[in-house]
């Protein structure tokens, strides 16, 4: 149970944002190409930052509170999921604000 400390944070973020997809019909998830291309380049930069920070001991993780599944550069699985879940939540929030404030300019209007 203790190993799910970081996973719990990710689950909370998903629960706290993905309901917008249904309730406010923000339609972020279904635009797969757009969200994938928005997130991928930025996420790669942050993964490189994470790799550097872990290698230089800027931060480290309690191995009792993570799943202990690692990707490249000794980065825990939770970190990779973080760079997917948090950006998706940010995009859903942006689209939710757009849906509520329809006269506000976002910058991609036709």
């Amino acid at each position: 149970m203790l190993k799910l400390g970081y996973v719990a944070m990710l689950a909370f973020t998903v629960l706290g944002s993905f309901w917008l997809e249904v309730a406010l019909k923000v339609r972020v998830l279904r635009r797969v190409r757009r969200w994938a291309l928005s997130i991928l380049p930025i996420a790669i930069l942050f993964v490189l930052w994470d790799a550097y920070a872990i290698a230089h001991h800027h931060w480290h993780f309690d191995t009792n509170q993570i799943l202990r599944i690692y990707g490249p550069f000794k980065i825990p699985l939770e970190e990779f999921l973080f760079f997917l879940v948090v950006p998706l939540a940010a995009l859903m929030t942006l689209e939710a604000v757009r849906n509520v404030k329809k006269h506000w300019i976002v910058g991609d209007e036709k």
Partner: protein
Amino acid sequence: MSYTQIAVSAVLLALVLDLFVLRTSLIMRKVFWTSYAIILPFQLLTNWWLTSRNIVMYDAGSIIGTRIASAPVEDLLFGFALILGVQSSWVYLGRRGV
């Protein structure tokens, strides 16, 4: 480079991306700051969870030491750069019809 230096650089890079590379100018728009105002309390809450329980721990020599809701202030810069970078890319791609 310390976490502080990288975090400040990341925010500057995100601003350059938004204003001059992708030219989305999100930081000039109410929609961005409103979404950020919604996201920020959740970031503070999740950061607090990760840091107060020592799920993530920081090297004292890599941060300036100021903490907000138990997390290094640098984390706020990290989050801002991540959010602005992704949202700016999203708007850019939308404008291009992706």
